[in-house]
């Protein structure tokens, strides 16, 4: 399946890109697993990384489906 991944703020800088299109094998199904694939590390999703699927907040175990937009970002600091 194909998904769109977006990064914001400091995560955009550390990944070196704002967004990308990612082709996933079917065995990658959660946000946490996607994070491992993107970072190449075995560790789970850090506490200070927030995630949204299709612009709604989700937890690390949320499932991803074909066509989803998944976003990773640091704690928010608006207002």
């Amino acid at each position, binding site marked *: 399946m194909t998904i769109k991944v977006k990064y914001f703020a400091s995560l955009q800088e550390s990944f070196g890109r704002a967004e990308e299109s990612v082709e996933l094998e079917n065995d990658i199904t959660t946000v946490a697993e996607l994070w491992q694939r993107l970072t190449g590390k075995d560790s789970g999703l850090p506490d200070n990384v927030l995630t949204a699927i299709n612009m709604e907040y989700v937890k690390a175990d949320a499932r991803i489906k074909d066509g989803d937009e998944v976003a990773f970002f640091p704690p928010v600091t*608006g207002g």
Partner: protein
Amino acid sequence: MKVELRKQRFTPWQEIERRQTLMQKDGQFGAVVSFIGNMRDSNEGDNVSAMALEHYPGMTEQHLEKICKQAEEKWDLMEVLVIHRVGDIEIGEAIVLVAVWSAHRAAAFEACRFIMEDLKSRAPFWKQETLEEGKRWVEKNTPGQS
């Protein structure tokens, strides 16, 4: 209800007054509570000379509207106005405005506070400050309860 992201500097009092005139509910609302957040020239002991506000186009607007709808379900409100800056901000400028109109003060106070606390802790905005030594991302908002 009106939620707006704004690239240009705005004068919060003019925006509140304009909204209140458009409402045409004079004589109905007894209470208006507003919060205005302004850019300070220092943060965590460091001088700050400028700021940029990043957001998640689409999700930010959607999230703010959801907060306001929740407030309207929870309290008896006549109108809610939220304006939030994005992009480059200068010292002293208004960053955010939340104004709530209601018949009575308890609803107006509590709804305004509720919207601000959710906005600060959940709305997808990120501040990058310019210091003398360079730029840094603000890592965390201060908690809202004293």
